[in-house]
């Protein structure tokens, strides 16, 4: 059973819909003590870093998610959910994150041809192979919508990069059993569903 963390940040149903379409059973849950009962956990989310962390804190999810991450079972963060895996966010003020994959989330660097938010279809450049990208076609596009991006402390935790105008940013992070996507696999048609399917069958080892 796959657990989708419901902490009051954005439309979680699209993640749920895509998993049911793929034939995987999942459930939205909002009680942190349930976290450990799932084989796999997805942390979605749309919105601002600080209010999301506040929601996780209030609900008691911070420790629950850290413990779950340490259990070795697969954890996937999507968009804001990926950002929350970091150590520190700046949206709108400096806020401590879950600190599961060390790094910082900051506003994307501006350049003349870059308008924020970065919205639309864009491709990924992998830095290495990963079980979640098994069978993924190279060069295909995924759907992005964000203004902030993740810079990992350790270079090896950056799994893919994406180019927007002159800016190259980290578009997926991965370390051991944890993965984070900046783009929305649940909104990226067949290409995105492929990654979700891989996640649903992944045992967390690399």
């Amino acid at each position, binding site marked *: 059973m796959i657990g989708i963390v419901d902490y009051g940040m954005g439309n979680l149903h699209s993640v749920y819909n895509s998993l049911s379409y793929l034939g995987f059973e999942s459930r939205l849950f909002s009680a942190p003590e349930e976290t450990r009962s799932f084989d796999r956990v997805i942390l979605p989310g749309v919105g601002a870093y600080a209010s999301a962390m506040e929601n996780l804190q209030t609900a008691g999810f911070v420790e629950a998610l850290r413990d779950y991450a340490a259990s070795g079972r697969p954890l996937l963060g999507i968009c804001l959910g990926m950002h929350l895996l970091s150590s520190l966010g700046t949206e709108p003020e400096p806020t401590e994150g879950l600190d599961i994959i060390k790094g910082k989330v900051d506003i994307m660097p501006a350049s003349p041809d870059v308008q924020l938010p970065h919205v639309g279809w*864009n491709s990924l450049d992998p830095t290495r192979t990963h079980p979640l990208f098994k069978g993924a076609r190279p060069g295909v596009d995924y*759907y992005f*919508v964000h203004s902030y991006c993740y810079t990992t402390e350790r270079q090896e935790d950056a799994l893919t990069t994406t180019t927007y105008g002159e800016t190259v940013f980290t578009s997926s992070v991965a370390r051991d059993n944890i993965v984070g996507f900046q783009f929305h696999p649940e909104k990226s048609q067949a290409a995105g569903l492929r990654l979700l399917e891989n996640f649903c069958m992944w045992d967390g080892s690399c």
Partner: protein
Amino acid sequence: MLKKRIIPVLLLRNGRMVKGKHFTDYRDTGDPVSAARIYNAQKADELAFIDIDASQEGRKALFDTVEAAAKECFMPLTVGGGVQSVDDIRQLLNSGADKVLINTSLYGRPELVAEGAQRFGTQCIVAGIDVRFEQGGYQLYANCGKRTESISLADHIRRLDTLGAGEFFINSIDRDGTMEGYDDDLLRTAVSLTRRPIIACGGAGNFQHLADALELGAHAAACASLFHFGDNNPIRARSFLKNKGIPVKAC
């Protein structure tokens, strides 16, 4: 590199999909959920559902349609029609919309853009502007082309840009349903007024029309008749554009 988008538009009235000409003479074009399913199979870049029916039954049909489409269309969905408040925006997002298109209420209450952007992010607020070329200038219309507005195109775009509109959906009433091509001058004007993405709508009749709009600076080309009334689809549109050197989604 960020890609240019092709957005099929599904106009809804009473739960059915329709298409008109110059915002009148609507005819039935089928079941919107079936159409959405087909566009999903053809890997459209995004879908826009616009409800032109203000009745209560029409609203309910809109929510049902969006909910049904969101269950099997794994792409961004833009939904509009009769949006008047932050609560309307929330309801549409909850039913499965990723972005909400607002048009008429932005004349009386432009600050709805700021309220929506603050609550849900600028990326999910799309400002719709319906335009007709009259007496040597652009006349803006509200209420599906039924009511004229006094503000100029430039002032309206700049105002909504400042308030935080994420994108602009520019629809030419003159070209709507004619399949004679977008109003390229209108689009050029819109592109020069804001750095936010411009979605072109109204008049696309062939793939070259899409290319024209995208080459002059529009970020996305929306169309209805092109796909409703011919042997055309987003897959063929993308391959045409790709051959022209326009960056489009690879899938």
